[in-house]
């Protein structure tokens, strides 16, 4: 029992230490990202890798979610004679919650683990040290560019994913009810309010920041060896996924305070 208690205390201590280190890492990002020199070329390259190369995965997932969501909910709504509410229900749930969180979770898996593994591998093969000794600040070149790229790209990916999810929903509806594209999307946009779109979009910036931050932190301080790289990639996904739900909860809580929805 005593040993169990000691292990628990140690785990809590380690968690708090890591939390402190991540906070310090985030603080360093804010301290350094506005100070020249700016690595614009690398930022654009990262935006391309993170944004463009995730389009297919995010788009496919969004599209299938839209299809499945509509197919699953239609029978129940039909039972209550509320099938005409499908465009409204799909759009609100996709835009406010499902789109951002699913896209962020997919990106945590694809982008977060990729960043963790890439930086971890660079750490263990001394590439980060080589950058440092060549008189380049690796934090600026590797970390700031990646965090900024994920922060800027995630909202765009979410919008893209949302659109394809709603389009997927429209395809099901057009097959079942022969609804026109214009009518379906008119109904979608008529129900969406400012308080649905803006807070949902703002929180995606935080999701993107969290994905970049944790991926970079885990990779940048990766322990030696190939095991260390694997652990960095894995921990990046696990920590980010947990953090995404925490951010989502806070975002919903704050939105409710301001918009009474």
């Amino acid at each position, binding site marked *: 029992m005593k040993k169990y208690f000691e292990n628990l205390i140690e785990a809590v201590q380690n968690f708090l230490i890591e939390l402190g280190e991540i906070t310090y890492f985030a603080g360093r990002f804010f301290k350094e990202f506005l100070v020249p020199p700016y690595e614009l070329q690398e930022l654009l390259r990262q935006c391309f890798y993170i944004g463009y190369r995730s389009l297919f995965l995010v788009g496919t997932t969004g599209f299938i979610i839209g299809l499945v969501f509509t197919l699953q909910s239609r029978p129940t709504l039909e039972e209550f004679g509320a099938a005409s509410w499908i465009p409204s229900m799909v759009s609100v749930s996709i835009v406010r919650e499902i789109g951002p969180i699913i896209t962020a979770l997919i990106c945590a898996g694809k982008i977060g683990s990729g960043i963790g593994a890439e930086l971890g591998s660079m750490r263990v093969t001394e590439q980060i040290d080589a950058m440092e*000794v060549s008189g380049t600040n690796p934090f600026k070149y590797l970390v700031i560019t990646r965090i900024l790229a994920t922060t800027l790209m995630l909202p765009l990916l979410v919008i893209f994913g949302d659109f394809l999810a709603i389009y997927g929903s429209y395809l099901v509806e057009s097959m079942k009810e022969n609804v026109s594209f214009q009518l379906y999307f008119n109904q979608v946009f008529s129900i969406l309010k400012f308080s649905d779109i803006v807070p949902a979009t703002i929180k995606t910036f935080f999701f993107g920041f969290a994905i970049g931050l944790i991926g970079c932190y885990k990779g940048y301080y990766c322990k030696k060896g190939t095991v260390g790289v694997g652990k960095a990639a894995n921990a990046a996904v696990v920590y980010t996924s947990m953090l995404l739900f925490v951010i989502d909860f806070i975002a919903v809580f704050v939105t409710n305070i301001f918009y009474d929805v």
Partner: protein
Amino acid sequence: MMYNMEKTEVIIKIEKLHKQFGTNVVLNGFDLELHKGENLVVMGKSGSGKSVMIKCIIGLEDYQGGSIKVADKEISELDRKELDELRTDIGFLFQGSALYDSMSVRENLEFPLRRHPKKIGKLDDTTPLVLEALESVGLAHAIDLMPNELSGGMKRRIALARTLILKPTIILYDEPTTGLDPITSKEIILLMQSIQQKYNTSSIIITHDVDCAKAIANRMILLIDGKNYAEGTFESLQAATDPKIKAFFK
């Protein structure tokens, strides 16, 4: 190898260097002087702190005590900008080459060049400078290859070319021949000698390789228990009767 160090200035001076990781003391009162144009070999057992020592010189590792002066500047007192500026004057060859594996050979060499245009003075076209550095290691034909297409020896040479691209006056070699076959090791040693003659660099070479030390050392330091155990030319140390010193030359 004849070398008159009394007539030349000291460019790196380490005094009573103390470095520890947790409770593990790695360096405990280590001293070193590197003279201009000198090749100084540091030998010691694995884990004796040789690599840590050169990482302290370039500012990759902090140290808990003592002093490291490079060109009369105390390393621990430099801010980030000053340290980066000083680093452009020091080349560092990593044990594992540390080439950026997402970049081609050309991009690897251009990387430091693009960040320090003032150091070279011209930047419109970096190709001549990249080619010059690659030619000095005999690998101009590899300019567009990726690191994963290179052998271990080629990687080491490209890393050396990247080290040379900013025309440093000091080069720190971290086990330059480790992991290479004897023939490639000999090629690297010859390359180090030719670089020293061509660019008049001063070097600290960390090695286990007695052949490398014999070929290149003007002076040697044996690092045992975190301190300078013995110092002298290769020949004088090889002739020593102390069993700890003799163990290095067996």
